[in-house]
């Protein structure tokens, strides 16, 4: 595995100390701008690990997500991203009806590659991009230490000459440890 990709997995691994919550869920992306003409949105998957409170209301978070897209007019071709990010989540102090608002800011890398279904000897085109995301969320209780959260994520994958901008809605299942 190339150096940069490996380092990001180490980054995620470093969050295991003092783990306070983990969450998994599905994501529905909406590509913005000119890329919306080229890319067809598909359901993605995400997971996140939270460290305990490092400052008042602030938790460290490391996240891993897989987001595929299909290329318009090329049904067999997919553009895939593996997002590896870390950052901080600021949780609101007051709760109304058990609902807890929060916002996370994350930086990291997105490993992107193309793949073609039913092709043998496929040449893999891939690259690591710098990426940043802001994730406002609303957490709601389900049962015991289990809760859910609805996230509205804005992510930029930086690329020249044009960035990939994606707004996503995600539904996550969160288990507080």
């Amino acid at each position: 595995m190339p150096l940069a990709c490996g380092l990001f997995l180490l980054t995620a691994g470093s969050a295991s100390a003092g783990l306070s919550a983990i969450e998994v869920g599905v994501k529905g992306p909406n590509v913005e701008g000119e890329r919306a003409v080229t890319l067809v949105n598909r359901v993605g998957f995400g997971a996140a690990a939270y460290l305990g409170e490092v400052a008042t209301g602030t938790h460290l978070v490391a996240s891993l997500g897989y987001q595929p897209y299909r290329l318009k007019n090329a049904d067999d071709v997919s553009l895939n991203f593996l997002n590896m990010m870390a950052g901080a989540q600021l949780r609101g102090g007051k709760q109304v009806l058990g609902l807890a608002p929060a916002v996370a800011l994350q930086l990291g890398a997105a490993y992107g590659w193309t793949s073609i279904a039913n092709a043998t000897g496929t040449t893999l085109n891939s690259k690591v991009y710098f990426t940043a995301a802001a994730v406002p969320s609303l957490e709601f209780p389900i049962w015991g230490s289990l809760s859910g959260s609805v996230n509205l994520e804005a992510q930029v994958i930086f690329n020249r000459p044009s960035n990939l901008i994606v707004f996503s809605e995600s539904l996550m299942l969160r288990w507080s440890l």
Partner: protein
Amino acid sequence: MKKLILMVGIAVLAGGCGNGTNPLDATGNSSTTPSFGSPVATMGTGSLTAFSSAAPAYVSVNLGTGTQNVTAPAAGIVLSATLSTDALNPSGTVTIYHNAHFTTRLSKFNPSITSPGKVVAAGEVLGTTPAPLSWELIVDGAAACPYGYLSAAARVIVDQGVNNTRPCLP
């Protein structure tokens, strides 16, 4: 926290893992119409002819005779490549995805490109042909006459075809 930020920073600065071409570039810019070159250097006795088959209808461009290189008319991703088993009467096909609107299928030649997913540049050699070459241009899923999308230089080449017929020519 410092450790986290440091590791993220190192990873971003060390970025560069990956192979081949930037996949975001390879998906094409759909806000622009590619300027297509000619897939061959000379037309010879070739012709630009429109005809339709049962399904799907398509436009074929007979680009002449004589062994010559076949090149990518515009940049894109190779979607499929079928090699030919007969060098004299080649049946190979290469399909190139240019962007969300434009796809090219070149057939009846000997492809040297074998890898779907490979990103090709405009003018990159795809193979050779000792016989007429067919070029189908698909725009938004429908066959289209390539002539209207050719660059000025490519039109000079295609105009050499002695058997050019309408309605593909303007």
